[in-house]
């Protein structure tokens, strides 16, 4: 399996290189992706939980804001 492509642009020489990530670069890239995905999933779950609670209470988001103000 090939690693993802990384583009490297040297602004001093204006040279652009497209190459496969090294295994080390790929490992760092995947670790960052895993972190990002955990954050995104947590945010999506929080949104879903909020929507479910509003539905359970039978009020809108604006009405919830009024209650908390």
């Amino acid at each position, binding site marked *: 399996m090939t690693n993802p492509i*990384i*583009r490297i*642009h040297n602004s001093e020489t204006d040279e*652009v290189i497209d190459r496969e990530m090294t295994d080390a670069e790929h490992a760092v890239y995947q670790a960052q992706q895993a972190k990002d*995905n955990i954050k995104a999933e947590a945010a999506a779950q929080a*949104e879903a939980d909020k929507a479910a609670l509003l539905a359970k209470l039978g009020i809108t988001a604006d009405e919830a804001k009024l209650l908390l103000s």
Partner: protein
Amino acid sequence: VADSAEATGLKWATAASGGGMTLLSTTTLSGASLVVESQRAAGLTWNGGQNMLAGNTANGASILFYNYADTSIAYKTFSFQGRSVSTASPATNTNAGGGTIATSSAITSIQIGMGSGTFTGGTALLYGVL
């Protein structure tokens, strides 16, 4: 007025040149990750139709490093802001923030990458102080 006469009762010198941010390079986004290298890598802004979530059309973000070339400073402060648009919910996301990187080395490269997939379009603009 570049340099006024004292006859007016006021005198000021010509403003110092330089110091402003200059566009150093423009890169078409491609692949899964982009690295832009320069000895003057002070700030990067990127925008376009990156496939950041699903069906995005108008994403943009930027990051700026302060004192990016000063090796006497042990921490490099940065600020960033960005916005993404998606067909998924929520339809828009806006993020802004900042922080520090614990390094006295000059910032000579900036890397951006995708959460998943690859860039499907857009450009990255590198800025620095000449």
